């Protein structure tokens, strides 16, 4: 045995730790027929207490990845407390856990009833505490880094505040995020049960909280449906965007960095996805895989990445020609290291701005699918509401039709506004002059005429210009030595 410990090379240990259970689960997913419970192996242990049928596999996967990331992060943090990678892994895990329990309410149910049991609350609390601890450790590791981050955030916020589009988007989003987050406190989920009605079918808005937006064809409260729909619409949009961004950015970076035939293959795949009309594709996939909350997320994520991939690739093509990439190669860094540490951070602003725009598309896609009856029948989303309304004739039912319709438009517009704002902030070329922090000396003195050359360049003239270059040596020929 080598002095370093077990025979597995150090850099692979985390991967084996992480991928063994994940690939095991993936194998079970592929080999087991549909709607048969998981009965053996590792899946039995997890599946026994969380997922009884194949329909819940994506949820099982999320949970499994969260657990594996926890393990990897914890081991990494224990082994070398100064490595930031471990912290980020733990942080990602904490966020994943949080989203997961927030969406499902509990570890044992996946139908988005939102009734947070003791276990669900416990997990959320643990996740938030963990995130806090990680953030604190990260901050304690390097005070300078914290100072820099705070300074950067402040600068960013300054620019963002001056951008009316960004602020409008932010306010709209904060409103809907609050509605989605506090749904359990705003409206009782039991009101969504088909047996519970608050008034006569199709009654217009009236007094009383649940009657503010009238009732639908079953006499259920439209307001309660609206509030709980916000949750599904936003979560589907965000999770689908995560998949889409990881795929799009990953493929874009790989295609751009390797170039050659590897890049060609990836870009042709991207083109293929780009030209296939996504809606029929999504409909076909949805009818094959089933109309399930997680499947909808997967379908939208798998069909919305090509745009991101193209944009990211074009920027990677620029970055990979920069000299520090050559320097990294000279050092002997591996390709994955160069892509992770050198290319990705440099194209990150673009990925970030693009992600926000993709959220809008994802939410719209979810609405479209739900409206066409391909949404999860057990959950309300704004698209589902519109579909039910449409099925009931829709004429004159403005109180049922307008709230989800307006909400969708507002959220999509808000995300687009934010995306545009971030695009402007992160790309200094798009920034307007007066927004550049006041250090533009030309903007301050409008009375001085500045001669401008053909390409917008400032022409510097100095009165003595005779039309000839002045660096000849003929002038000092007669000078005494």
């Amino acid at each position, binding site marked *: 045995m080598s002095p370093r410990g077990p025979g597995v090379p150090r850099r692979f240990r985390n991967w084996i730790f992480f991928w063994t259970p994940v690939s095991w689960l993936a194998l079970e997913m592929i080999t087991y027929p549909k709607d048969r419970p998981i009965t053996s192996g590792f899946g039995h242990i997890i599946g026994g207490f969380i997922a009884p049928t194949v329909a819940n596999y994506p949820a099982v996967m999320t949970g499994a990845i969260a657990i594996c990331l926890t393990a990897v992060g914890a081991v990494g943090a224990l082994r070398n407390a100064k490595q930031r990678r471990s912290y980020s892994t733990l942080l990602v895990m904490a966020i994943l856990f949080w989203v997961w329990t927030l969406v499902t309410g509990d570890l044992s149910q996946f139908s988005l009833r939102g009734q947070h049991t003791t276990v669900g609350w416990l997990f959320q609390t643990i996740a938030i505490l963990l995130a806090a601890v990680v953030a604190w450790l990260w901050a304690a590791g390097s005070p300078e880094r914290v100072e820099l981050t705070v300074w950067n955030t402040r600068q960013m916020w300054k620019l963002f505040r001056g951008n009316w589009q960004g602020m409008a988007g932010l306010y709209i989003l904060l409103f809907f995020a609050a509605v989605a987050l506090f749904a359990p406190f705003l409206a009782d989920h039991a009101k969504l049960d088909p047996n519970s009605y608050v008034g006569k079918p199709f009654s217009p808005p009236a007094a009383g909280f649940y009657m503010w937006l009238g009732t639908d064809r079953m006499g259920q409260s439209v307001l309660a449906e609206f509030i709980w729909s916000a949750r599904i619409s936003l979560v589907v949009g965000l999770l689908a965007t995560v998949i889409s961004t990881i795929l799009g950015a990953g493929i874009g970076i790989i295609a751009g960095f390797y170039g050659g035939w590897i890049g060609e293959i990836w870009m042709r795949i991207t083109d293929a996805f780009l030209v296939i009309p996504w809606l029929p594709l999504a409909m076909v996939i949805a009818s094959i895989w089933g109309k399930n909350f997680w499947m909808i997320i997967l379908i939208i994520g798998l069909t919305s990445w090509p745009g991101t991939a193209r944009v990211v690739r074009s920027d990677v093509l620029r970055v990979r020609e920069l*000299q520090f990439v050559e320097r990294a190669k000279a*050092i002997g860094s591996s390709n994955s290291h160069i892509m992770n540490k050198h290319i990705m951070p440099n194209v990150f602003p673009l990925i970030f701005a693009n992600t926000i725009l993709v959220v809008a598309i994802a939410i719209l896609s979810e609405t479209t699918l739900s409206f066409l009856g391909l949404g999860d029948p057990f959950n309300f989303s704004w698209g589902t509401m519109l579909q039910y309304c449409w099925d009931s004739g829709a004429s004159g039912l403005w109180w049922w039709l307008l709230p989800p319709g307006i909400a969708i438009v507002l959220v999509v517009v808000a995300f687009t506004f934010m995306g545009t704002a971030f695009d402007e902030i992160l790309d200094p070329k798009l920034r307007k002059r007066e927004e550049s922090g006041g250090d533009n000396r030309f903007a301050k003195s409008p009375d001085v005429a500045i001669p401008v050359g053909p390409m917008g360049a400032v022409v510097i003239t100095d009165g003595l210009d005779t039309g000839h270059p002045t660096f000849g040596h003929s002038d000092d020929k007669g000078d005494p030595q």
Partner: protein
Amino acid sequence: MTPVAEKAARGAPLVERIDHAGLLEVRDMKTYFKLSQGWVKAVDGVSFILEPGESLGLAGESGCGKTTAALSILKLLPENGRLVDGDIFFDGRNLAKRTEYGMSRIRWKEIAIIFQGAMNALNPVQQTGKQIAEPIILHEGLSEARAMARARELFDLVGINPKRIADYPHQLSGGMRQRAMIAMALACNPKLIIGDEPTTALDVMVQAQILDLIARLRKDLDLSFILISHDLSVMAETCDKGVIMYAGKVVESGTTTNIFTNPLHPYTKQLIRSFPNIHEKREMVSSIPGDPPNLLEPPPGCRFCPRCEIRSALCATEDPKLAEIEPGHFVSCHEVA
């Protein structure tokens, strides 16, 4: 027992060392670039020898293949570049025959390079110290914390306050960035450092500081150094040996004293004349008329022939060979030999 295991058991080295002169011996190296119109013969038969602890200057005008020659030693060529012929012996190994993996073990660990513009060679969104720690982690297998400690030492060695280690490249001045690049080159204690115009983007004061620093480090750490420069004065100041290149070929090589006091090749002579001399009578600096040849189809004879003052009929048809005129002084010219 396999022959390899037998050898290992005997304690004999598994790979035989190749006998060659000096620390680095480049023999007839040829690097071509493929374009749609054909092959550009950017480096066409370059040879020189570098002894341990010695410094060598590669000089010539822009586009004569200095940088390509240096990058060929490390085999860091662009995708369309090929090392088509020649041998590069380094410390008992032939780099020309090495695989990409084999080269990655040599790069930075034994031969490091200081790139042209320091601003471009540093990643703008990563802390400078982290970038210096990168090769240490990769090649020495140290933990990040230890590598950072070493990066602090290196910062101190090249004369930057170690506290600046957490700074991003844009927070450093041009000279400091160049110093950081030198620190990075020293990170794994290499035997040979290649400086690709390390002072080009700097003003004269900072340039002098950087050259002093390189000279001091060379003496303290017993490094070999290859300096690539179009500035003959820089070369005269820092190097023991000089190699003058023209259009992908070596026209003259020897000790710097030899080259500057007794230049033999007409190109070298004119190159030296095109720099003002502060010790002698003030006179017009002269330029060399004409342009370097197109390297897609170089002229059959001597490549300098069209611009040469002393050309003869032989020069236009036959390529001169590098010949030793006096001990250690090589010239490739029909008229001189």
